[in-house]
């Protein structure tokens, strides 16, 4: 039930945004989140943006995954 979808903010009108993912656009309430700008990625749950996605942390996490491969980790 706690599924949420990462979506890109396309337009903002006061406390409501239009967000899109894979060509799907929908209205999203910004009631739970401040400082949202067009171009940000937000996490959408039940019609509300519940958090912004931090692009630097997202990249850092992927870098950790890649380091595992660089360390020569392969399944036995």
């Amino acid at each position, binding site marked *: *039930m706690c599924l949420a979808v990462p979506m890109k903010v396309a337009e903002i009108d006061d406390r409501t945004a239009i967000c899109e993912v894979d060509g799907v656009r929908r209205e999203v*309430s910004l009631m739970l989140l401040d400082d949202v700008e067009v171009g940000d990625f937000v996490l959408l749950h039940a019609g509300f943006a519940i958090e912004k996605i931090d692009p630097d942390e997202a990249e850092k996490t992927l870098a950790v995954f890649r380091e595992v491969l660089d360390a020569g980790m392969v399944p036995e």
Partner: protein
Amino acid sequence: MKYASEYRDPALAKGLVAAIAAEVKGYPGVMTLMEVCGTHTMSIYQHGICSLLPASIRLISGPGCPVCVTPIGYVDRAVAYARQPDTIIATFGDMVRVPGSSSSLLREQADGAQVKVVYSPLDAVALAEKHPEKTVIFLGVGFETTTPTVAGSIVAAKQRGLRNYFVFGAHKTIPTPMAVLTSDPELKVDGYLCPAHVSAVIGANAYRPLAEQHHVPCVVTGFEPLDMLRGIQLLARQVVAGEARVETEYSRIVKPEGNQKAQALLAEVFEPCDTPWRGIGVIPDSGLKIREAYAAFDAERQLPVAVEEPQEHQGCRCGEILKGKLTPKDCPLFRRACTPENPVGACMVSSEGTCAAEYKYGC
């Protein structure tokens, strides 16, 4: 899908699986890791993660499917509301098929009741606005991810001056039952994979009492398969080292302090209360009820209704499954009397229930 598909790369998954095996090499015995959240349970089954793990790691599912932990009496009351004239029940889809003592919302719908599945509580507010002659009751079931959105719907209804929008709530919070399960002597949990989006709201610091007072390691983990594997690796590392800290694998979303704006809105509309969990019983301060200031929107206060005496289904082992004490295969009804087409217990009804996941994907 950006910020999702990158976290599903099979090549990286193989590396992480090998890293987990290296982490627990030489570990004596089996460590029990509980994924608390139903969305984690689904991800583990869907991606076959349990079949990738070494024998020294056992994953068990916890009480984190909100539909599954909602007592049968709640469903009975929702059914009673659905039978009232000029009433629209608005609900997330999962609740519709949950069997009550003698009926379900789906059956009531077939008999003519107005039961509408909505994606957002705001859709329920829009229904109330569109149908001022009807009583619209939103079934507020969920954890801290969802409760702020329900709070938002109540504030929106108040701003719009609506008098026909009500919330019938069974909202629950996550860290409290985790502490209860930790204290259960029959259930030895060595580490918790903490929920992703509940934590986006409450923050990773919410698990510090579990780690610091109960000495159980906690790793806040995302729902994508690579997130899950990395979370398991970090958790296994703590268990092997005998440590108990809160770590956050899902740092692109979850902050130590969480989403304070969402917390503030939640606290504006809701306050803690004791609440019953299916299979566990009443846990003090583990629920959220609507504050007096918003009582006009509380279905329980405003809309009294006669409800049948709740009767649990004979033989259903959902209670023990929700606590991680039994697996679906231990239940005599599983795959026989209880299937997704004809579910007996909530763990089979909810798409995030452990029994539904086991039935659909096996592991």
